[in-house]
């Protein structure tokens, strides 16, 4: 059984292995033990803190194989994007250029640098080992964050965003970067991503164009890359679109990948999740697959189990699962159907 739980400092080496595997563009997973250590420490501190509204907290989770102790995935949440530094994105916008005299009425697609998404909660650092793609465990480490948010709404904003890595080729070149960012700093996409993951993304964003970019002037390859998803990020994208995230309005200023956005309360796994009292039983009955979490903080646990449950009724939980989640009879779990 795989279990999602907060990362601890002891996980650092394993986490760094995951970070090294993650594709270029997931700047929130730098292959740098110092930065990863900071990430884990910040998460532990955030979980331990009394929080009444979203601020500088961040949370970082790992997916552990309980039989081997090996970590096979990770994911994170930033409580408030742009809390200490502005959160930049390109907004897809339409300008109308019209002349009554010439009877012309053109709609021009432009990208406007904006900070619209500042203050939203941000889902970050998602990565699972390749063999888990398509399995319920990938859903767990991604959507488990949503169950965590559902249990601790005071810690998060009214909106949630996810940055999806955009297109780049095997040699690490991004057509969108080459047509846009590259003109403003003289380094490859891969180098820029590396730099911004080691320092801050804002650092480079400040050097990006501040005037709107007229999309028709961009090369075809860059126009086509806008809003496109990197094959290795397709999983994350698919999970989030099924959760009801909107994909059309914002793109990443570096690689043009889509930035997804949803009202927190409207996210499927949050809106449809329910609390159920637990009854621990010796052997449970299979049925439908559910994501389950214990609703904890430092002791947060989530997993996927097949259950036969009727809403409004107690949840019959095998002792093995109850133990993995750290719940006992009389306690409760938050759950949502996997599919």
């Amino acid at each position, binding site marked *: 059984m795989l279990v999602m739980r907060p990362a601890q400092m002891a996980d650092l080496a394993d986490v760094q292995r995951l970070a090294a595997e993650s594709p270029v563009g997931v700047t929130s997973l730098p292959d740098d033990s110092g930065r990863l250590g900071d990430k884990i420490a910040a998460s532990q501190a955030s979980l331990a803190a009394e929080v009444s509204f979203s601020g500088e907290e961040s949370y970082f989770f790992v997916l552990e194989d309980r039989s081997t102790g090996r970590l096979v995935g990770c994911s994170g949440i930033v409580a408030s994007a742009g809390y200490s530094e502005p959160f930049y994105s390109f907004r897809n916008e339409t*300008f109308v*250029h*019209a*002349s009554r*005299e*010439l009877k*012309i009425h*053109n709609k*021009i697609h432009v990208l406007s640098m904006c900070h619209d998404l500042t203050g939203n909660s941000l889902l970050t650092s998602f990565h699972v080992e390749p063999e888990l793609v398509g399995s319920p465990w990938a859903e767990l480490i991604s959507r488990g964050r949503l169950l965590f948010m559902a249990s601790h709404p005071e810690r998060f904003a009214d909106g949630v965003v996810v940055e999806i890595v955009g297109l780049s080729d095997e040699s690490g070149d991004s057509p969108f970067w080459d*047509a846009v960012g590259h*003109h*403003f*700093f*003289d*380094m490859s996409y891969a180098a820029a991503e590396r*730099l911004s993951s080691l320092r801050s993304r804002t*650092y480079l964003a400040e*050097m*990006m*164009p501040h*005037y*709107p*970019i*007229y999309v*028709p*002037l*961009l090369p075809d390859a860059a126009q086509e890359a806008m809003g496109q998803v990197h094959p290795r990020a397709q999983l994350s994208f698919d999970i989030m679109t099924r959760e009801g995230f909107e994909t059309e309005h914002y793109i990443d200023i570096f690689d043009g990948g889509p930035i997804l956005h949803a009202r927190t309360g409207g996210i499927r796994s949050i809106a449809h999740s329910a609390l159920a009292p637990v009854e621990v039983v010796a052997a449970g009955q299979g049925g439908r697959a559910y994501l389950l979490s214990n609703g904890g903080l430092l002791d947060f646990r989530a997993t996927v189990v097949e259950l036969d449950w009727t809403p409004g009724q107690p949840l019959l939980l095998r002792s093995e699962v109850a133990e993995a989640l750290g719940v006992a009879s009389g306690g409760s779990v938050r759950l949502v159907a996997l599919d």
Partner: protein
Amino acid sequence: MIVRPVRSADLPVLIELAHSTSSGTGLTSLPPNEARLAQRVAWAEAAFRGEAEKGDADYLFVLEDDEGRVVGTSAITGAVGLREPWYNYRVGLTVSASRELNLYRENPTLFLVNDLTGNTELCSLFLLPEYRSGLNGRLLSKARLLFIAEFRELFAAKLISELRGMSDEAARSPFWESLGRHFFKMEFRQADYLTGIGSKAFIAQLMPRFPLYACFLSEEARKAIGRVHPQSEPALAMLAAEGFSHQGYVDIFDAGPVVECETAKVRAVRESRTLVLAVGTPGDEAEPFLIHNRECRDCRIAAAPARMAAGTLVVDQATARRLRLVPGDQVRAVPVAAESAAELCP
């Protein structure tokens, strides 16, 4: 040869001239559109009568040979942009630099501005190819400067001239292809024609309004920014010698340079003198002068060898006749050539 104001009787020949220019593009201000030309002639007549406000004044001159044939045109617009906005791009610079990251990148940036509003424009210069020899070109172009020197109060403190930008044999402008075409579904020739018939402000409404980073244009287009069409290089050289220079403004369609000069610093304005006409033998050492009869409505300007002597300008009989002057009449004159060849500022 004489430069004189256009008259309505010139209209048929003007239309012919306009058609003959339309084989190439770029002479925006003389499109082969009869209604527009008739209107221009009417405006010009009003301007030379002193009945036009500066913002409407359009002084259209023709070059007439001694047989009375009209072979070229040139014009002065009293002040641009007072009726409809007058747009240019100004080429500025955006720098992305970080000492800490040791990064530095320059991006030329085009700002859509109306900065040149209110200035006097030199435009509509056209000379039939078979007359492009001797002093004809310089007479036709520089006659305007002498006219301005005489009637300073009719003109602004700065003169500008928009020079034709780069285009290929098929009149394809690389700047237009890279920018304008995305905003208008039309050929450069057509936009140029619309500009000529007075619709430039409307077209400008369709252009991008926010500053444009040149890096988003094609390399060919970037190279065309501020570059003059090879065929207009002589016109540029002539203006440069008079003191005009390029200060970063370009045309919004083809990115051709706008050159400018303070009126008071234009050589022909600064150095022209009022003299008394004398008829005689200018002599072997005579240099060519531009000579103006100091009239507005009945303006006549000629180019001829002449000699200055004690407040008089000695010309031959034929020149006096062309100017319709007799000895003792006043003229304004300046040598045709600049004394030292000025360079165009980069």
